[in-house]
């Protein structure tokens, strides 16, 4: 059974009635429980939970301290290639956007990796567009050989692959997969993915399962908030995380709550997502799955990231650039999206310490 079967159970849900049917008393019941089910999670995401945000924050903070302590992992993203055949209306690397395209050579990967490693970063997230024949598995395996010399943990954020390709990448040194479904609403998914292999909703939805079957250690999920109503996306992302954890108990599951950022091209029909909404989402997720990793990227600004940290964030990106070669080639300044927190690694370390937490760089070794 794949997560699609779970998702289809909600096909005819009347969402207004669903959210309005949740009372303050139901929220309090969820807040008082140690073992939460999806209905409890929905209660914490509902409008009725908004007056309880402080109580949720206190519990989320305590749970996070128990499970993760006063530490937060710093990682950096590294863009390898922005060639892409997909036409995703919300993305700066959209094939229809007239931007310079570039793919790092192995020598450039070496230079870029060395520059990032120089800052102390040991966990790297590598990203590519979706362009068969360009950033394919063979290219990535070559990059991994280089990256392994500089980093202890390598995560990928690439196109949805099949199980055999995930297995090859894992054998090549990948231990984590980041894969955003973008939206759990199949109708909107179809509208925003105009052309390209990414148009297949079900294939992308099952990608984390294929990676888990191939033996990946950790999976990071997310919906790109702004495409559909955030509550629904938050609910399904949490359900997806819970589904994966139940099916693959040894898997480390985490999620991100990325909000849409300005980028090259246009996407006009953005659903509103406020700071309060992000906070409610992260708190509900922490209470629903106390061991869930929560990753916060530089899509959010410095002040907001600092304030979210004690609520249960376990991983923060630092020294980010979303441009291919952006760490060593300043002329390449067209990123996938504009980052909102430009702090470099020492600045992030200082901010984490100022919040009373230890910034850590090492939390895995290839074995």
């Amino acid at each position, binding site marked *: 059974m794949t997560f699609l079967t779970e998702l289809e159970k909600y096909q005819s849900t009347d969402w207004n009635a669903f959210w309005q049917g949740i009372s303050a008393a139901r929220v309090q019941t969820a807040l008082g429980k140690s073992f939460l089910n999806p209905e409890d999670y929905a209660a914490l995401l509902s409008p009725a939970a908004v007056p309880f945000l402080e109580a949720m924050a206190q519990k989320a903070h305590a749970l996070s301290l128990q499970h993760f302590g006063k530490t937060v992992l710093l990682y950096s993203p590294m863009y390898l290639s922005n060639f892409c055949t997909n036409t995703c209306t919300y993305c700066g690397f959209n094939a229809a956007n007239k931007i310079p395209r570039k793919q790092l050579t192995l020598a450039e990967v070496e230079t870029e990796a060395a520059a990032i490693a120089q800052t102390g970063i*040991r966990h790297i997230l590598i990203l590519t567009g979706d362009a068969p024949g360009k950033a394919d598995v063979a290219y990535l395996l070559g990059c991994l050989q280089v990256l392994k010399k500089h980093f202890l943990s390598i995560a990928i954020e690439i196109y949805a692959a099949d199980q055999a390709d995930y297995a090859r990448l894992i054998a090549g040194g990948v231990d984590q997969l980041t894969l955003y479904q973008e939206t759990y609403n199949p109708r909107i998914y179809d509208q925003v993915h105009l052309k390209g292999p990414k148009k297949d909703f079900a294939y992308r939805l099952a990608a984390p399962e294929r990676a888990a079957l191939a033996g990946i250690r950790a999976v990071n999920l997310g919906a790109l908030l702004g495409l559909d109503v955030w509550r629904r996306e938050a609910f399904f992302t949490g359900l997806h995380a819970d589904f994966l954890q139940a099916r693959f108990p040894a898997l480390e599951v985490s999620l991100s709550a990325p909000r849409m950022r300005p980028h090259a091209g246009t996407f006009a029909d953005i659903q509103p997502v406020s700071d309060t909404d992000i906070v409610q989402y992260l708190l509900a997720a922490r209470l629903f799955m106390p061991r869930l990793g929560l990753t916060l990227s530089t899509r959010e600004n410095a002040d907001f990231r600092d304030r979210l940290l004690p609520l249960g964030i376990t991983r923060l990106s630092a020294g980010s650039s979303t441009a291919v070669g952006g760490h060593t080639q300043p002329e390449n300044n067209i990123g996938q999206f504009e980052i909102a927190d430009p702090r470099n690694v020492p600045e992030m370390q200082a901010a984490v310490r100022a919040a009373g937490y230890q910034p850590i760089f090492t939390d895995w070794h290839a074995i």
Partner: protein
Amino acid sequence: MPEKIIDPLVIGGRVFASRLMIGSGKYAQDAQIPEILRRSGAEVITVALRRVHAQSPQDNVLAHIPPNVQVLTNTSGARDADEAVRIARLARAAGGNGWIKIEVITDNKYLLPDGEETVKATRILAAEGFVVLPYFSPDLAVARKLADAGAAAVMPLGAPIGTNRGLKTRELLEIIMHEISLPVIVDAGLGKPSDACEAMEMGAAACLLNTAIATSPDPASMAEAFAEAIRAGRRAFLAGLGAQNLQAQPSSPLTGFLHNG
């Protein structure tokens, strides 16, 4: 001449005066660790290999551990016996001391250990000469298998890790302490010094503490409090606790007639 240790704890041929062991994770600063060791007198500290990168000055917790303190590397992150064995060998190859705490977690939701894989890893590593301290859910059958497999001590959990809930597995721990001749070190779940004291009164050889100390607003004071509680509990155990009576002694016993006249 070193001072003679009264009531020493002996594991893997090493003699310890302290029965408090501490973890090295979850601290706001690794630099707090020397003070915690000093104030608590702990002589064993666990370190996750996954968190150590000797070439990174900011990620080398080992640099904060004085040479007289025994480092007990753990296999955090291992999902089966094979991974635990590989982590242990990596630790030894990196200059480790051959002491290994086996943690095999196949359940990332509750972080509960996998007994079967833990036994397998214990057998392999003990045969390779490691001093093996396996972490497991308190199950007598598993404890016996760990002892047979060559464990130097066993480390059953008091409650799910990180929960600070105390001796939730008390009855099962007591059985293991009674039946297993190896040192029994209560690991995980202890939240208060009184929990550790109670474990020691029951006959635990030692307690391992991390979350309750590391996440305390004053970790060094909390570590010291745990050390005192562990000493008190141990002393009480050695002195022999008075038998507890479930009921008051009746003034008119039902069998008194047997002794009358």
